[in-house]
């Protein structure tokens, strides 16, 4: 402990409005080590990285780099201090060349003109160091594979003397071969004395590459230590922890006949076709990591993504979901995971948002009766507890919870029989959450069917009748909820295998 750590954070806290996202987090990173930063979705990892990079300011706490206080006011400060962050979604300009991307913002110049020769030299040197001399500096980035793009992104970080490299889920879109090569690069950087913070959900990978780990849970450090001395089971236990038990009102409901059956549903963004049956009065939970293919499955089923293969039967009606108009007419309804960007037209008023998918009832001899539409919207506001001044209020003025209820009320209003709910409780207050759980129960009791995608395991276990798990683009397992524990669900989501022991040394 004599040596000063490369990076040290003490007592970092941050809140957004009333939500305390980080609660006095301490973290140390030494030169020449790989530190795994772990935690469930929403544990505070991304916020911490953003604070480190200078994108957010912490409310409290201090940061030191090699013993000197580091107080960034913008991301550029972070870069100057040698901090580079590689985000999950790559930040490259697709039609610029590899060289231009790597040197962007740090071009070598002479008398104000770009010195191509010098740039090229530096780019070649970095690519050589990374073990990828085969990547041509003149190629536009859009022509590269995802793996090669990642290399370019890392090369960009290295071109400007980086001391601290943060990688946010770097392997989530990589093939196994690319992942293996990435690990080689990481080991090389470590040997050169860089400190690396490695954020990942794939715990088996973490065991292979990291030296130490820190686990965040609900914004606090839940534990940490040496990777050699831990196991996947312990990491999962630390990530889940023991939670304040929440209220999941279970309304009695009985599964009836099959209402939805999908056979061979597959879009370009899924790796395997999905077969699934759903009964009336049933809530099917869907677990999986972000990017595991859950959203893609719902979108293919609903006709939002182009279908490569598959057939859907809803209540005896067979169809190929090629357009949302067809799936809505057949009784499907989708709640988008992103209500700001897709789910709601936030610049329109509440009444229009609520009734857009089914305006026919308000036609009188071919013309819309606006008063009738407003009155119906008012009624729905009461029914699902939307707090708003009037049906003419613009949706962007509502709180997250109320917005989500508008989006949900739309599905009720369009008289869907099968509700496809993608992260319906994300980013909303506890009261609204409880109301949405209750609503799902009411739907099931009403002989409707619900598919409930969530990244928050307790709510899946608390609300669903069966839980399915997606892993890397495919459906891997479905079981009744009683046959799952939180740890098992987590394990299945991470490894793609539900019951097999995972620390027995076998590799994926």
């Amino acid at each position, binding site marked *: 402990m004599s040596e000063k750590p490369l990076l040290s954070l003490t007592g970092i806290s941050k809140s957004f409005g009333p939500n305390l996202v980080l609660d006095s987090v301490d973290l140390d990173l030494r030169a020449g080590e790989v530190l795994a930063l772990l935690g469930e979705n929403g544990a505070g990892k991304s916020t911490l990285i953003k604070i480190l990079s200078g994108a957010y300011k912490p409310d409290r706490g201090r940061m030191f780099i090699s013993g000197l206080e580091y107080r960034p006011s913008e991301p550029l400060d972070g870069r100057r201090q040698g901090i580079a962050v590689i985000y999950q979604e790559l930040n490259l300009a697709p039609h610029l060349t590899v060289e231009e991307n790597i040197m962007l913002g740090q071009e070598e110049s002479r008398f104000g003109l770009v010195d191509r020769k010098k740039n090229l030299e530096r780019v070649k040197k970095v690519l050589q160091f990374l073990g990828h001399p085969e990547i041509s500096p003149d190629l536009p980035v859009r022509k590269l594979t995802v793996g090669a793009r990642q290399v370019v992104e890392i090369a960009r970080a290295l071109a400007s003397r980086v001391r601290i490299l943060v990688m946010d889920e770097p392997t989530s879109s990589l093939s196994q071969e690319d992942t293996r090569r990435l690990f080689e690069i990481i080991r090389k950087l470590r040997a050169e004395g860089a400190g690396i913070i490695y954020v990942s959900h794939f715990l088996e990978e973490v065991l292979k590459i990291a030296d130490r780990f820190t686990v965040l849970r609900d914004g606090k450090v839940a534990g940490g230590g040496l990777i050699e001395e831990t196991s996947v089971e312990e990491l999962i236990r630390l990530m889940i922890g023991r939670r304040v038990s929440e209220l999941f009102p279970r309304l009695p409901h009985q599964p009836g006949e099959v209402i939805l059956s999908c056979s061979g549903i597959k879009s370009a963004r899924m790796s395997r076709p999905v077969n699934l049956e759903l009964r009336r009065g049933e809530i099917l939970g869907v677990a999986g990591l972000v990017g595991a293919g859950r959203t893609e499955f719902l979108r293919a089923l609903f006709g*939002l993504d182009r279908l490569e293969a598959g057939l859907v039967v809803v209540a005896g009606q067979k169809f190929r979901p090629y*357009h*949302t*108009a067809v*799936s*809505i*007419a057949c009784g499907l309804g*989708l709640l*988008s995971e992103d209500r700001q*960007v*897709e*789910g*709601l*037209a*936030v*610049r*329109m008023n509440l009444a*229009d*948002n609520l009734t*857009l*998918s089914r*305006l*026919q009832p308000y*036609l009188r001899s*071919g*013309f*819309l009766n*606006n008063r009738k539409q407003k009155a119906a919207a008012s009624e729905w506001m009461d029914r699902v507890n939307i707090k708003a001044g*009037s049906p*003419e209020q*613009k949706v962007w003025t509502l709180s997250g919870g109320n917005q989500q209820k508008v989006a949900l009320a*739309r599905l009720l209003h369009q008289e869907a029989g099968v509700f496809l709910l993608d992260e319906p409780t994300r980013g909303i207050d506890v009261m609204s959450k409880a109301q949405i759980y209750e609503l799902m129960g009411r739907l099931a009791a009403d002989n409707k069917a619900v598919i409930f995608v969530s990244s928050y395991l307790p709510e899946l276990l608390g609300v669903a009748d069966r839980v399915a798990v997606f892993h890397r683009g495919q459906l891997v397992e479905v079981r009744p909820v009683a046959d799952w524990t939180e740890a098992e669900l987590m394990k299945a989501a991470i490894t793609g295998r539900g019951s097999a022991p995972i620390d027995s040394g076998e590799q994926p």
Partner: protein
Amino acid sequence: MKSAGSGLKKIAGLAGPFGGLILVITIFSLMPEVSDRFLNLSNIKSVATQSVIVALCALGLTLIIVSGGIDLSAASNLALSCVLVAYAINLGAPPLLAALVGVAAGGTVGFLNGFLITRLRLVPFIVTLGMMGIARGLAKWVARNQKIDAPLSWLNELMVRTPRPSWLLVSPGIWLMILFSLVMAVLLRKTIFGRQAFAIGANELTARLCGVRTDRVKVAVYTISGLLCGLAGVMEFSRLTVGDPTVAMGLELDIIAAVVIGGGSLSGGEGSILGTLVGVFIMAFLRNGCTMMGWPNYFQEIIIGVIIIAAVTLDRLRHRQE
């Protein structure tokens, strides 16, 4: 209580463009040089008649802008229609048929705009920029790069200031403008199609999520707008009595300005027929007043430029308060 409140809000919403119109009219009627002539009936009639062509195009463009699009080809489209009417008459077509040819040509250009935008997934700006050149070029080709003379017919009476029969009071063109304003207002506010156009403009992803067949709606939007441009072309022919392929150069910007002054948002989801008409009249009265004052042309251009910027700024401020 509620309805009264929302009614007040609506008035406040229109206060911007209406206030501008009232301001323009007041200023000129207080100018001693023109105060006696500016507000008299025959001048108003003449301003209204001059507004018909821009107004017809602006009605269609309101629909396009509401749905989140733009049309730079409106003026070229109008010129093509104008030339085709003259051409058809010279081929011996009866006036009614010739007029229908003009309207249909406009509709075809509009349909092509919509078709290319939805099929090629190109932005409307690019497609209609290309179509602006294509339609203008076609018009010049058909007319062999000169004006097409055509024998006079009842078509040439659509835009006269003193109509026959006299009980019409104003020219048939004005009546057509009023008729289509009503039709478009109803289409926009009281039909599912109109509501879907607003939804596409406000958020196309949401519209798709709600089962709106966005491509079909967009093609229809551009086709309807094209038909109105075609009709404006017929009116232009009526006024000029010749088919002129170089007519209405640069008018597309006046048309866009009218919609924007009237509260249409270039980011889609907002706009109204009444607002657009007010925008058209603000520009028409301004031009008329400046001409009467004997102010030079460049002065008018500067004033209109200032008004566009002021109108949109006011609109922004109003939205922020909401």
